[in-house]
């Protein structure tokens, strides 16, 4: 149990182990920008050890019951502390959110999945964050709380750029809301990396397609990561798919539209040109998987 004199005594490098939401929000109200919020630590501790972030007060939130637990209903309510492994291993979540479960399964090894949380992945806002495309196609919302107020944003609004979100220094991300897959709907997350495990995505793509009885696409959501400063939805590609029966030419055009919305860069993992070339084939593969999972007949 840490008390305020400890924060004073250790100056800019304290550790506050919050026992409940009120205590965490009070600490954020008091110290705001001087606080680094610590959940699973898989990003924060690495950044700290590499010297990418300067030592600040660590606010440990892992004990907060208000940020735990998930319930699948008409809307899925998911605590920000839900770990990647909890998503992978929870049958109800896997059924309602197959793309999210697939994305979580590609993150690190078991050690990372045990520690890393959905809230951490979103707030860290890496351009290659695996969970973000899956959350985007789930129409996810995020709840932020401060000592004074609660507000809700879509995840799409919340992540504004590379490692940049709308979270204010006094706010804590507490929960997410997600739309489960409906009837005649399929979704998937596909990831290209150099190896099967422990890999940061070269390109990641999530897709959710809903069909009518005739197999016509009535709703399409396409999101990609690692091909721009932040994971994004391609409204252009989505619009092209809606109303189609996934004819080959349509899918190719949607792939080209997705390429058009992407802004990949060269880095140590891959060139921008390679990332760009992957998008259309990945989108095509995703349409087949979504169709198969929605169990409707194609033309």
């Amino acid at each position, binding site marked *: 149990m840490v008390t305020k004199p400890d924060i004073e005594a250790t100056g800019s490098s*304290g550790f506050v182990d919050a026992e409940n939401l009120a205590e965490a929000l009070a600490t954020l109200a008091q110290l705001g920008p001087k606080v680094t919020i610590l959940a699973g630590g898989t990003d924060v*501790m690495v950044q700290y050890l590499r010297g990418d972030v300067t030592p600040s007060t660590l606010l440990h939130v892992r004990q907060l019951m208000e940020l735990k637990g998930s319930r699948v209903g008409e809307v899925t309510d998911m605590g920000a502390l839900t770990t990647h492994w909890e998503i992978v291993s929870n049958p109800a979540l896997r059924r309602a959110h197959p793309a999210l479960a697939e994305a979580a399964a590609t993150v690190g090894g*078991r*050690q*990372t999945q045990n520690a890393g949380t959905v809230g951490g992945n979103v707030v860290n806002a890496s351009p290659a964050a695996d969970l973000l495309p899956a959350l985007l196609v789930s129409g996810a919302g995020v709840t932020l709380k401060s000592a004074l107020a609660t507000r809700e944003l879509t995840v799409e609004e919340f992540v504004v750029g590379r490692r940049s979100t709308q979270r204010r220094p006094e706010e804590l991300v507490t929960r997410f809301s997600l739309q489960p897959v409906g009837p005649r709907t399929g979704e998937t997350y596909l990831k290209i990396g150099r190896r099967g495990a422990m890999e940061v995505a070269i390109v990641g793509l999530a897709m959710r397609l809903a069909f009518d009885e005739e197999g016509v696409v009535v709703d399409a959501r396409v999101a990609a990561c690692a091909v721009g400063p932040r994971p994004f939805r391609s409204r252009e590609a989505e619009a092209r798919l809606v109303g189609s029966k996934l004819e080959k030419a349509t899918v190719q055009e949607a792939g080209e539209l997705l390429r058009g919305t992407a802004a990949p860069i060269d880095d140590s993992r891959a060139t921008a040109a390679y990332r760009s070339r992957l998008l259309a084939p990945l989108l095509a593969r995703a349409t087949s998987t979504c169709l198969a999972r929605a169990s409707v007949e194609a033309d």
Partner: protein
Amino acid sequence: MELRLTVNGVARVLDVRPHATLLGVLRDSLFLTGTKRGCDEGECGACTVLVDGSAVDSCIVAALSVNGSRVDTVEGLAGRYGDLDGLQRGFVQTGAVQCGFCTPGFLMTLTAFMSENPDPNADELRTAIAGNICRCTGYSQIIEAARSAAANTPK
């Protein structure tokens, strides 16, 4: 700052810096050097320990974030008189130890996994050890060791 842990069944009270890692505390304060420092960024799995039964990379766990927890390290696997546990015997019998640096991490990852799944197949084991790297590349023997330990465990 005060840190209370139960390490391999022994209650410990330590004074640690706010940003200390669990790996640092285990190796430098408790001299439990079986847990290895490899990449120091949660990629290689050499520092894997169990916190309340779950495998984690101790190099990126803030020590104070696991205050009050039970921590199990490779030193806790063998019995009181140094008799190796089933998984350790499996590693010895199948030649799964080459340079040995990754071994404690693999042992802890597999200990946690096999408590959930006592009789895994080779594919399940390959997925389970995805977060551990053996740079001697002796993965086949490690899989074989886990299979042999499972076979020798009374059901």
